[in-house]
């Protein structure tokens, strides 16, 4: 056995775990590790410009490749800046290993320079967190971190690395097995319970499948499609479940929830059997709990036993991996007679199809329609806000199209860095980021990373000079008291401004000039006719990112909308 430094064992661990890309921001407490990385050629080290964005980049990389995303930051502020990124990954079950530098063990507790108890800070927002107190545990802890991150319900794992441990000599052995007595994730499905659920399915008159993100994470899209085609039972998805079945599939009714389609929300309300797979019944999905699926028996398949009967009481709980469960189901299901029920669903769909009210001039829908027409094989990443909801409503997904979005946390600033991570993991795919003028500003500095890494990501920036989702809520529920949502506001503006005045600058900031300042390209689009040409120009820029800024009307709303606390069937359909 050779004696090597902790830093060498870390790099060896990354190599053995097959890590090809690491998102790292150096600092005083991790200089030894960065020196070790300098001396190897297997792992590409990307330098983001902020640690929050760094974690989102690793997150976009992980979601789009299915591999574990790896982050490396220094202690104190570097570690603290990761918090939002970690929480975002935790809520959406994204496998990450986040490595943070820490002051030497002997200094911990002294309020040393850049000392922060990051394990304590992140305890409730990561799957597991641990500090390496002893060089002899380093290999085991790293092995366990990767294992915990990617197995069971995936999630972020934080490993805090004191400086002395990383320079200390010790074993060069990286274990090839793990045995954690408190962590034995099970994916196997209980067949008896599954048969009971299928019996219920066979005897129901008005069944519906509700599919969450778990099906996408398990990679069970093909199995789900087979299940739907075999049973002829219609499907609705949550936001995270979108794309688990081709959105053009005749049995697909759209998304449920706060901004779900009329047909999907009515289907969930009126069904007699809700067969749900891989969803945690978030309040954005259920809205008023007592009215959710009010006439239905509920089957719930989830890999996380704690997700079952947490928000919604279920009749048949099944703890299993979505892919294993659906595959097993295929052996027992039959074609279902859903004639009348299907007719009802289709009539709901016909009565209130998803659309955008304002159809004048340039709208988000027209841009997304252009993406639908021209892209068959792309990764679309959204930020958070109105543009996200429009994308989720209108973007068409097939097996070759992937959508990444911050669902559970709803983190503004997620989209652009996550798109960069997706591009780094999928060099040959078109990556489109859809963002807003609010969210883009929350990690705008990543333009520098994108330019440096020569990442030809297309950023569709919908600029309505507003924090549009909040503005929409103020329009609908706060008598148009537009409090703190205008991004063009100046000191000289009237305190209670209701909208536009002649004094307003046309936009703030000038995103086209800003793109150029970073060495990226910027195109401003103000009319519908320019959409195609702008995309063509952006696609030609293969050396770096292009921002296409679409100037849209700030009065465009995301509809339908269910007000918080109201039942799903009480949708605001027009305004």
């Amino acid at each position, binding site marked *: 056995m050779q004696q090597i430094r902790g830093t060498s064992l870390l790099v060896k661990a990354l190599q053995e775990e097959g890590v090809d890309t690491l998102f790292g921001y150096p600092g005083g407490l991790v200089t030894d590790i960065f020196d070790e990385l300098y001396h190897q050629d297997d792992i590409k080290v990307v330098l983001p410009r902020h640690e929050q964005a760094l974690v989102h980049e690793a997150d976009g990389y992980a979601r789009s490749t299915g591999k574990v995303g790896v982050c490396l930051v220094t202690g104190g502020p570097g570690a603290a800046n990761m918090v939002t990124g970690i929480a975002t990954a935790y809520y959406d079950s994204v496998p990450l290993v986040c490595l943070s530098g820490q002051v030497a063990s002997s200094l911990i507790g002294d309020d040393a320079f850049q000392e922060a108890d990051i*394990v*304590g800070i992140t*305890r*409730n927002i990561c*799957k*597991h*967190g*641990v*500090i390496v*107190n002893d060089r002899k545990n380093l290999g085991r802890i790293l092995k366990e971190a990767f294992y*915990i991150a990617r197995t069971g319900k995936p999630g972020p794992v934080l490993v805090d690395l004191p400086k002395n441990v990383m320079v200390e000599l010790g074993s060069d052995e990286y274990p090839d097995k793990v045995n*954690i*007595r*408190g*962590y034995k994730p099970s994916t196997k499905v209980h067949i008896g319970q599954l048969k009971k659920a299928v019996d219920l399915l066979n005897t129901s008159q008005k069944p519906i499948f509700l599919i969450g993100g778990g099906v996408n994470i398990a990679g069970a899209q093909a199995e789900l499609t087979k299940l739907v085609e075999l049973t002829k039972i219609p499907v609705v998805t949550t936001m995270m479940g979108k794309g688990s079945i081709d959105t053009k599939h005749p049995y697909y009714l759209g998304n449920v929830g706060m901004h779900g389609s009329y047909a999907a929300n009515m289907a969930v309300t009126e069904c007699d059997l809700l067969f749900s797979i891989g969803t945690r019944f978030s309040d954005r999905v259920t809205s008023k709990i007592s009215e959710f699926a009010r006439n239905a028996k509920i089957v719930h398949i989830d890999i*996380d*036993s*704690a997700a*079952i*009967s*947490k928000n919604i*009481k279920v009749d048949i709980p099944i703890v299993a991996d979505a892919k294993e469960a659906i595959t097993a189901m295929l052996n027992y299901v039959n074609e279902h007679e859903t004639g009348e029920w299907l007719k009802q669903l289709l009539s709901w769909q016909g009565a209130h199809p998803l659309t955008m009210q304002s159809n004048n001039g340039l709208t988000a829908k027209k841009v997304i329609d252009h993406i639908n027409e021209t892209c068959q094989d792309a990764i679309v990443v959204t930020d958070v806000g109105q543009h996200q909801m429009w994308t989720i409503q209108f973007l068409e997904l097939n097996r070759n199209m992937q959508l990444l979005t911050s669902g559970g946390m709803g983190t503004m600033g997620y989209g652009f860095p996550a798109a960069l991570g997706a591009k780094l993991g999928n060099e040959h795919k078109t990556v489109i980021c859809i963002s807003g003028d609010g969210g883009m500003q929350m990690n705008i500095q990543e333009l520098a990373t994108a330019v440096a890494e020569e990442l030809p990501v297309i950023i569709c920036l919908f600029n309505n000079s507003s924090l549009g989702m909040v503005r929409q809520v103020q329009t609908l529920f706060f008598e148009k008291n537009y409090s703190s949502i205008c991004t063009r506001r100046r000191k000289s503006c009237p305190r209670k401004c209701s909208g536009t005045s002649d004094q307003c600058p046309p936009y703030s900031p000038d995103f086209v000039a800003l793109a150029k300042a970073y060495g990226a390209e910027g195109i401003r689009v103000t009319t519908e006719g320019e959409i195609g040409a702008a995309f063509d120009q952006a696609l030609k820029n293969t050396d770096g990112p292009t921002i296409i800024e679409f100037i849209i009307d700030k009065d465009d709303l995301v509809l339908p909308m269910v007000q918080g606390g109201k039942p799903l069937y009480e949708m605001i359909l027009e305004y």
Partner: protein
Amino acid sequence: MEKRWLSLFVENDIGVLAKISGLFSGKAYNLESLTVGMTEDETVSRMTIRLISDDETFEQIKKQLNRCVEVIKVVDFTDSPIHMKELLFVKVRKCSKGDLDELFRIAEVFGVSIIDYDKESVLMECVQTESKNNALITLLSSDFQTIEVVRGGSVAIESISITER
């Protein structure tokens, strides 16, 4: 809402207590008492937890605890035959001669040890169930003016031969 008991086998590691108590506070679960100590295996600690909750929340709490990597096993003691005791110290001060006599009588009747005293103070040690300790505190606080109470929280273990609680 009912009183519940949990016995947790956890890794004897730094931060595990914070993890468990943080889970309760972060998710707004009720936590009445929590005791922790090392077991015969020095890598394992056992926690005895008392809480009040409804059935659904209790199920959720058990699942959330089970999800923690540091938790090796969750055992529900609510309906099991167990032995359970809590250590209680009560210091009674400013006692008259009559008070002292009364306290020694109380100690005899209630099975409490007097482990220290002087002319005007008495220190009692009581290892009883939590509810018997509650009763003793109620009695002492009604009859004596200055009492100081330190409680340890309950520890519990499955019984060997008894089948009722």
